[in-house]
């Protein structure tokens, strides 16, 4: 019984060492992967964002420059929308 337990304990000790090392190695690898993803995403920024931002930035100054107030723009937009839907 006793020597049996001793060998089991030895095996459990090995599992402890191997298990913890593998967990750490694996999750350290993931840290690298996450950093890589972050780096790649920073290097190639999302296109959607820039597309979304551009027209908005252009629209506001254009409206201000021509001197048309915001409610009028909104009314015209709604009218154009309605016109398009009817067609």
């Amino acid at each position, binding site marked *: 019984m006793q020597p049996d*337990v001793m060998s089991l304990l030895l095996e459990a000790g090995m599992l402890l060492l191997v*298990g913890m090392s593998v967990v*750490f190695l694996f999750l350290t690898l993931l840290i690298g992967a996450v950093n890589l993803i*972050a780096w790649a*995403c920073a290097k190639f920024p999302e296109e959607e964002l820039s597309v979304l931002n551009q027209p908005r930035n252009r629209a506001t100054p254009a409206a201000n420059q021509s001197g048309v107030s915001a409610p009028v723009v909104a009314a015209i937009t709604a009218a154009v929308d309605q016109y398009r839907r009817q067609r």
Partner: protein
Amino acid sequence: MDKLTLLWQSTSLAHFEIGQIVMMAVGCLLLFLAIVKKFEPLLLVPIGFGAILTNIPLAGFSDPGGLLYYIYYVGIETGVFPLLIFMGVGAMTDFSALIANPRMLLLGAAAQFGIFGTLFGAIALNLVPGFEFTLKDASAIAIIGGADGPTAIFLASKLAPELLGAIAVAAYSYMALVPIIQPPIMRLLTTEDERNIKMAQLRVVSKREKIIFPLAVLLATILFLPSATPLVGMFCLGNLMKESGVVDRLSNTAQNELINIVTIFLGLAVGSKLSADKFLTIETLGILGLGAIAFSIGTAAGILMAKALGKLSSEKINPLIGAAGVSAVPMAARVVNKVGLETNPHNFLLMHAMGPNVAGVLGSAVAAGILLALVG
């Protein structure tokens, strides 16, 4: 007179064994804890009720042909139910805190020391007469330290099905007890100054990073730890459904209807394993004790790792967040937040604790994969 004897023989009263009555009382205790004390009610209600049903004499719920027998056979012996739950958990998990600060993965790794330390402890318990845990039994018990119900049930169903009832009950009870077990350890291992540390705000994580992350985790698991792919794969599938944003219907089903349905059956099936001959043993006491130790060791290891990390890195790290490394999402993170607020009412640690918290889920799934590969 014959008929009268026959009638008497067909009642439960004639057939009750003391063990069955005790187990029914255990079932009622679980119902009490769930309904009155609100301990993990979603699971303890079906588990407690399943325990009552399975111990009814003559009804044969858990004999071949009985309802609970089939539910167990279909869902747990095959490992399907815990995996479906894992998919739902994946669909509910937001990894942005972890992606913003990936070093938190180390805290999730350190907390898994609770699992492997307890494995050692379970084998050492064999020195006490009355205990005879094999390496498989010990591994299944140790996974309680992962503080992750589905992972514990999955591993126990593969390695030690006869201990499943006790292991599942221990895992879910201790998860409910996280707010009681963790704070004393957290206060013991940290100084007031350390608990006061404020952490830098996390950066915003782009949608694309969140979509690539589950795929990267899956790829790493496929390459290095295929035995963990059932758990990690389903988890990543759920997470990808959520983050991709193109299958909202599937994502909603996975995190609501599906997980609810599976939870009912999973609870009943676990309850069906709470029969007197399997539960009323000295081993159950050992499992309950080892489970508490596993939790405490995991918490302590996470905190110590966070301290070490804080010393080594340029950014400040509040060691309290290490305690969230023992998955138990989101309870452990909330406990960290609460203990942090006790020291400094303006220091909100919840978002910082979510990083190690979800890292703990990955860590315990990885640990389960290692145990399956080495012991199973």
